[in-house]
Structure formats: C-alpha cells, structure tokens
C-alpha cells in the first residue's frame, strides 16, 4: 500500500507539472497581447512599459524558468488584467467555486441516489418509465440552455429567486450573520440546481442500472435464500456500491465543476474560478491562466488520489483501478 501511495504521489506531481507546462506554452503562443484594449486608444508606451516590467518580452524558456523559480517561492505572480497579485485574485474566487461545486454535487448525489433507488424498486412499472424518460431528457439538455430557461421562469417571471450574483450587495456584502448565510444559500439555489439537475439525472440513470446489477448478484441471491430481510441486505450493498461509484464519477466531474462551469457562472454572474479563467484567457493574462491551471489540476489530481485511497480502503478488490466506465457529459 505504501509503495503504491508513493508511486501515485510522484505521478500526481508529474501530472501537475506537465499540465502547467502545457498551459504555459499554449497561452504564450496564442496571438494577442496582454495589455491590448479594444475601442480604446492605448498609448503604445503603456504596453511597452508593462511588458518590460513583467518580463513578457524575454524568450519563452527564460520566462518559464523565472515562473518556476517564483512558484517555488510561493509567488504566483501578478495579474495583468486584474491589477492584483494572482494569489488574491484566486483566493477570492475559491470559496465561491467550492460553494457552487459542493451544492451541485450534494444535489447530484442526494437526488440522483434517491431517484435511482426509487426507480430500481419499481422496475419497469409506470413510475420507473416516466422517471426514466424524464432523466433521459434532463441528461441531454445543454446546461446553459437550462440555465437561461430557469432564469427566465424562476427569477424574472416568478421572482422566487434572485437574478444572479452571490449575495445581496447591501445587506450582505460579506457573510457575517445567519441571515447572510441564508441569503447566500438563496442565491445559490438556481446555479446549483442547473448544474446539479443534469448531474442528478446522470447519477439516477447510472444508479438504477447499478442497483439492478447488484440485485442479480450471487451474494444477494444467497442472502435472499438464507431468509435475511431482503431490503436491509440489498440496501446495504447497493448503497455502498453506489457511494463507491459516485466517488469515481465525482473524480471525473471535478474538473468540469472547477473551471468548466464558465457558462453557468457567466449566466448567473457567479464570481467563481471558471469565469476568472475564461476572462484571463481572453485577455491573455498569462500569469493568471497558468496559476488557474495549476490550482485546478492540483485539486483534480489530488482529489482523484483521495478518491482512489477511499475506494481502496472500502473495497480491497478495487485497489488497482481499471478505469471508470461512465462518460461524464461536460456541456
């Protein structure tokens, strides 16, 4: 176990390093300069000054080396487009990203599991068929389309939920009271629902199939034959397997929730990392782009590692991962 852990750690670090290098090269090679502004008459002197100040005129490998050295000192660099240290810019967005991802995953897990179990219990009867088709439909929706519709119906027409933003700017610019916690939750509902619904539909479909699988397994049949209360046996096994496979899918879904949720964050004006990264790419803010890639890949890689450890602990058969078999839709 120890040897495996060490090997995985080393591999993880190598992956992160490779990701950062790849992103670094890619963003520097793209045409366009960091300080360009459209429709505004920018003095070329400004651009030259800033370029020299941040060393963007040096050859690529020199910049890369300097970046690595700075990183070793914990210095993430300075964000050209936001005029703040990258560390501050990122630190500001991480809580929001975590809240959105956490709420979406919670909804995904709870709703998906509940639906999957319910459907498996009434296999091929009317509720199963209706729910099955509904989950199929929801799973196939483009998330940004769903977001636009939800915003139109629930926020603008019905006024049940706020139109985007993470908080009430007057009463709760920071979360410093119970009321503000509730306010944040209220603002979180629509964006988390948009992300979580599509995920829950996928989870429900997967769970239903998995539970039906388990129901036919030998050990369940044995337990049934032995006269043990079926519900308890089945439920225990199924839940455990469900949780394990959810952890795997979670590992695959995490990169999307971190920086792939750009569309949701744009439509709902949620100040998360996805939108930050997107704007950074558009404005060619080199340091911010590479830093985001670094953070995102670190979280993903170590999250996967953690998931693998958990699964290894839970089920010794799964110590050597053969690969998950569910395609995650990133839309």
């Amino acid at each position: 176990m120890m040897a495996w852990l060490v090997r995985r750690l080393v591999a993880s670090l190598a992956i992160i390093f490779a990701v950062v290098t790849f992103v670094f090269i890619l963003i520097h090679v793209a045409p366009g300069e960091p300080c360009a502004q459209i429709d505004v008459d920018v003095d070329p002197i400004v651009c030259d000054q800033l370029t020299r100040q941040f060393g963007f005129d040096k050859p690529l490998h020199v910049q890369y080396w300097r970046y690595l050295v700075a990183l070793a000192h914990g210095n993430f660099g300075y964000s050209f487009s936001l005029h703040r240290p990258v560390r501050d810019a990122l630190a500001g967005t991480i809580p929001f990203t975590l809240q959105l991802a956490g709420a979406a995953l919670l909804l995904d897990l709870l709703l998906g599991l509940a639906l999957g179990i319910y459907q498996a219990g009434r296999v091929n009867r009317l509720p199963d068929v209706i729910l099955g088709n509904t989950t199929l439909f929801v799973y196939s929706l483009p998330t940004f389309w769903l977001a636009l519709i939800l915003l139109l119906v629930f926020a603008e027409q019905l006024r049940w939920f706020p139109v985007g933003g993470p908080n009430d700017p007057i009463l709760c610019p920071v979360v410093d009271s119970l009321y503000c916690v509730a306010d944040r939750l209220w603002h979180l509902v629509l964006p988390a629902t948009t992300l979580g619904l599509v995920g829950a539909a996928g989870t429900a479909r997967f769970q239903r199939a998995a539970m039906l699988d388990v129901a036919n397994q030998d050990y369940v049949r044995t337990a049934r034959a032995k006269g043990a209360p079926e519900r308890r046996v089945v439920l225990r096994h199924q839940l455990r397997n469900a949780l394990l496979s959810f952890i795997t899918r979670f590992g695959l879904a995490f990169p999307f929730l971190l920086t792939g949720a750009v569309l949701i964050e744009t439509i709902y004006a949620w100040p998360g990392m996805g939108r930050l990264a997107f704007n950074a790419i558009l404005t060619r803010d080199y340091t911010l782009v590479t830093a985001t890639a670094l953070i995102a890949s670190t979280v993903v890689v170590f999250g996967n590692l953690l998931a693998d450890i958990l699964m290894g602990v839970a089920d010794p058969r799964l110590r050597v991962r053969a690969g998950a078999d569910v395609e995650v839709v990133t839309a």
Partner: protein
Amino acid sequence: MKLGNWLALFVALVLAAEIARLLRQRAAQHGRWRRLFRHRTTSWGIGILAFLVIIALAAPLVAPFPPGDQLGIVDLKNHPPSWTFILGTDVLSRDVWSRIAWGARVSLGIGALGALVAVSLGTLVGASAGYYRRWVDALLMRGVDVGLALPRIFILLMMVALWDRLPFAALVLAIGLTSWFGTSRLVRAEVLSLRERDFVVAARALGAETGRVIFRHVLPNAATPIIVSAALGVGNVLLLEASLSFLGIGVAPPDPSWGSIIADGASTIYTAPWTILFPGLAISLVVMSLNAVADGLRQALDPREEMA
C-alpha cells in the same frame, strides 16, 4: 413553407419510421439484437436519429429558404412562428426552420467527425496501453491523466485562441483531440482483460504479429465499450459545440449550427424565445436518442444480460 417542403418533410418522417421498423424486424430474428429493442425508447431513438439525419441530408428539399437569407430586416425580424415560417424568424429575419435544417449538417457533421476522431484516437491509445503494458501503458495513461486533469472548455478555449480564424476542420480536430481520454481508459480496461483470454493467447502462440492480433482478435471483442463510447461521444461533441458557439468561439457567422443559432438568439430570449427553444430541443432530441440507442446497445451486447 411551400407544398414541396411539407411533402419532403412528410417523406422524411415516413422514411425514418420505416427504418426503425425494418431494423426492429431484422433484429427480432437474432437473440442478442432482440434485446436491443426491448425498450420502446430505443426504437424511438433510432427513429428520431434517422429523421434528423435525413433532414440534414435533404436540407435543400426541406428548407423553404436559404439559411443565410435575410428576408425582411425591418418587418420580418423576430417574427413568431406562423404558416410561412413554421419556427419563426431570428433577429436578422432568417427562417429558423431553414437554419435548423441546414445547421443539422454542420452540427451532426461536427458531432460525427469529432466523435470519430476522439474514438479512433482513444481506441488507438487505449489498445496500445492495454496490450503492451509496462512503460508504454504507464506513459500513455499518465498522458491521459494530464488530459483529464484539465476541463475541456479551458483547453479548447486556448486552442481556439491559437488560430486567427478557425476553419471548420480545425474546430473538429480541436474537439476530437480533447475528447478521447475517457474512451482510452475504457478500451484499455477491456483490452487488459481480453489479453489473457484463450483465443488471444492462442493467436500469439501461433506467431501472429502484434498488430494483427490487436486488430483482428482483441478489438472486435472489445467492441461494446467502443461502440457505446462512440454513440455517447457524438452527443457530447454536439453539446460541446453548442457551448463553444454560445461562448462565441465555435462556428463562425453566418454559418448556422445549432449552437450558433442559440447564441444568436440568446440576447432576445425574453421577446423571441422560439429562437433558442427549437435549436435547444433539437440538440436535446439528438442527445436523448443517442443515449437511448447507447443504452440499448449496452444491453444487447453485454454478456451479463444473458442471464437476466
């Protein structure tokens, strides 16, 4: 819509239904394939897919207007659905139905081609990793891990930024190059387990060269995850293309693709919702159908289902 268009549409519907029915009939004769159609959704899925593909192929016949024609930029702008414009017009007074029909070519084309590139690449990498094992496997799978560690939109955005203007082929290539990682994992798992099966060992013992072993013996038996992956992949690519177009970095104007039609209509969602409703439904229908077909395929080809 002129009479000819209605006729062509009707013919397309009938053809699609016939195709679904014929396939079901043929399948009823083979045990495994009968399972494919056990659920009604699968035949509906095949029917819908066939219909949309026929529409795409027969776009000039089904669409009353050329997709880029601005029919009346002052009077016919954002016109609600009517008998002439059955799905309404968009902000530049173009017929939405015509754009959807022609856009089917682009979207389904990108979907199919992108999935083709992704599945091919994924199969190649996964099979090599699974068959050769050791350092080849380690190297390739770490590469896959790197690819999985970054979300697609991020990488795609940067890749798109590299081209000044993005030709269609480059877009397909970019999407394909970022979508193969999951498939490679799947294929690798299958190949790993198939490798030790008798027929493979026998083929190797008989001196067959590696490539032949892989292509003629291993891969055909690993077909299930590959085919299912391909079916789902088309849907994923479609959704991805829609997202990219919505972000402004997909298909360039004025070419219609389902994603760019939604992007064009996003600013008028409140006053002209039909401009995003119908292309969104089209995308959902295709992805739904593909998922239903993939479900059916999985059930048909999965050996464990023999017992159920």
